[in-house]
């Protein structure tokens, strides 16, 4: 019986394993290209195993772009966006989930409507605003508009409705705790897993953001990692063909995020899926 069950599972596992190979292969391939020389990239048949030229390629990347500077900029943007989003989104979500106040339904409906608006509708005027207040080329221009968002409020509201018992809030209120006190001492400690999810989600989004930084970060000396990598790519227009260097750059941009994801995101994937199914 058990053996029959095992045998029935061989085929699914085989197919899934092939899928995993396809899913992970591009990462392997970028390692192969980044560790061989540029001449190897053009070779036929291609080299299929990692080489020994990683250090040399990395050095070329560092010669061409301010890798660590742009990474630091990305870190600053991603961390400060995440902190602000966690605070503003959870506070608003807590309010929508647990308090009745005049206009709540209308305001929440409005929030959902805003969620649907496509970004490119507002990009040009947003750029004009940034130009007017002198934020073009600064990291503030990335952080402040992203400091609070409809998705996070919506998602956290679902989470708090289910995860935070009304009795706890009532008890705190009877003890005389104020609204903000209840948020800080009752709500926040209870929603840590939800906050962790929102943090990872926001951080990854901010780390990989491309369109808006491309528009607003006009100073080539002050850019984010994604822009720096793209710059490496645009710089390849025909005459220069250091593809091994280009691959080393992309690898360096991907690896920190992959490590962070595999370390911290154990429950993340399941949470995201659950949110999508229930939302």
């Amino acid at each position, binding site marked *: 019986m058990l053996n029959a069950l095992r045998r029935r*599972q061989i085929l*699914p*596992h085989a*197919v*899934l394993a092939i899928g*995993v190979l396809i*899913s*992970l292969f*591009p990462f392997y*391939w*970028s390692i192969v*290209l980044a560790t061989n020389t540029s001449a190897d*990239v053009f*070779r036929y*048949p291609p080299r299929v195993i990692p080489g020994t030229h990683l250090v040399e390629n990395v050095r070329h990347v560092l010669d061409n772009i301010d890798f660590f500077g742009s990474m630091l900029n990305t870190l600053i943007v991603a961390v400060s966006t995440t902190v602000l989003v966690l605070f*503003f989104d959870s506070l*608003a979500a807590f*309010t*929508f989930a647990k*308090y009745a*106040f005049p206009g709540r339904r209308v*305001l929440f409906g409005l929030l959902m409507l805003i969620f649907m*608006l*496509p970004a*490119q*509708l*507002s*990009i*040009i*005027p*947003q750029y004009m*605003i940034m130009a007017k207040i002198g934020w073009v080329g600064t990291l503030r221009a990335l952080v*402040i508009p992203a400091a*609070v968002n*409809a998705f996070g409020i919506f998602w956290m509201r679902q989470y708090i409705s289910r995860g935070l018992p009304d009795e706890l809030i009532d008890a705190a209120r009877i003890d005389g705790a*104020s*609204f*903000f006190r209840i*948020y800080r001492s009752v709500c926040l400690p209870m929603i840590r897993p939800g906050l962790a999810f929102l943090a990872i989600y926001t951080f990854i989004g901010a780390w*990989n953001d*491309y*369109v808006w930084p491309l528009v607003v970060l006009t100073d080539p000396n002050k850019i984010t990692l*994604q822009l720096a*990598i*793209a710059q490496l*790519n*645009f710089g390849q*227009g025909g005459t220069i063909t250091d593809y091994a260097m280009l691959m080393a750059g*992309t690898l360096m*941009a*991907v690896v920190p995020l992959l490590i962070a*994801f*595999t370390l911290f*995101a154990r429950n993340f*994937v*399941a949470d*995201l*899926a*659950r949110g999508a*199914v229930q939302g």
Partner: protein
Amino acid sequence: MLRYWPQYLAISPFYLLFAVFGLFPVLFSLYLSFHRWSGLGERKWVGLKEYDFLIHDHTFWLSLWNTLIIWLMSTVPMLFGALVIAALLHSVARGKSFYRMAYFIPSVTSLVAMAILFKMMFSSNFGLINAVLEAVNLPTYPWTNTPWGIKISIAALMTWQWVGYNSIIYLAGLQTIPGELYEAAQIDGAGPVRTFFRITIPLLRPVILFTVVISTITGMQSFTEAQVMTASNGATNPNSGGPGQGGLTMVLYFYQQAFSYNDFGYGAAIAWGIFVIVGAFAVLNWRLVARQED
């Protein structure tokens, strides 16, 4: 009203920021779309001229066509593949969390980096795909040098990046379907394929609807993949859309007009055109998938 001040204060940041960086820009872009303006100097009122130009602009319709083709070529295999992976994941007893992680990873990596990598893998002269085709004696294809090739390359990247993500969402949906249904089907003698089409797909319909709408909205607004993958084919303008403008998506065209040519008025008109088209498609999709329910 006054006694609710803490609540209003708590939700105010979203509405304040939205007013400044959302509502005002949206209204202003509508205003801009009735003007001729390069970002500097005088704004000139032109009424509906920008929209008239948009309707007769071949490049805009080409970009719509490109976007639709890329969207179809990525969404169909992506969602179908995701369903199959999810059904398989649901059927295995061990290794679920490993698989979940492995399938999810493509969706959290830098899109710019992966677009560069895919461009190299599909490169006509030294790409891996052509090398493999050559090795097994199949004809090679100039992927990154033809309008169709570039579309296929972009669609391949999108499929690869999002198939796992969607399968994880389907898996969560599958886990809400009671196991008794499958047992009953098995007793009635239904095979796995029949169960898949008769039980799994109908019960997953709400989740499928969700993924279809999300894929439509994001797919119709694809930009980064196209912009990075068509960036350096010897074109002078990096936003021109690659060979024969075959990779020029609607949002890339918007970006090109607004920020390469500083045509803010026309850019705003394109943005509204995209908004109407994407909205229409989202509603159409919703109708199509939702109607099959009865």
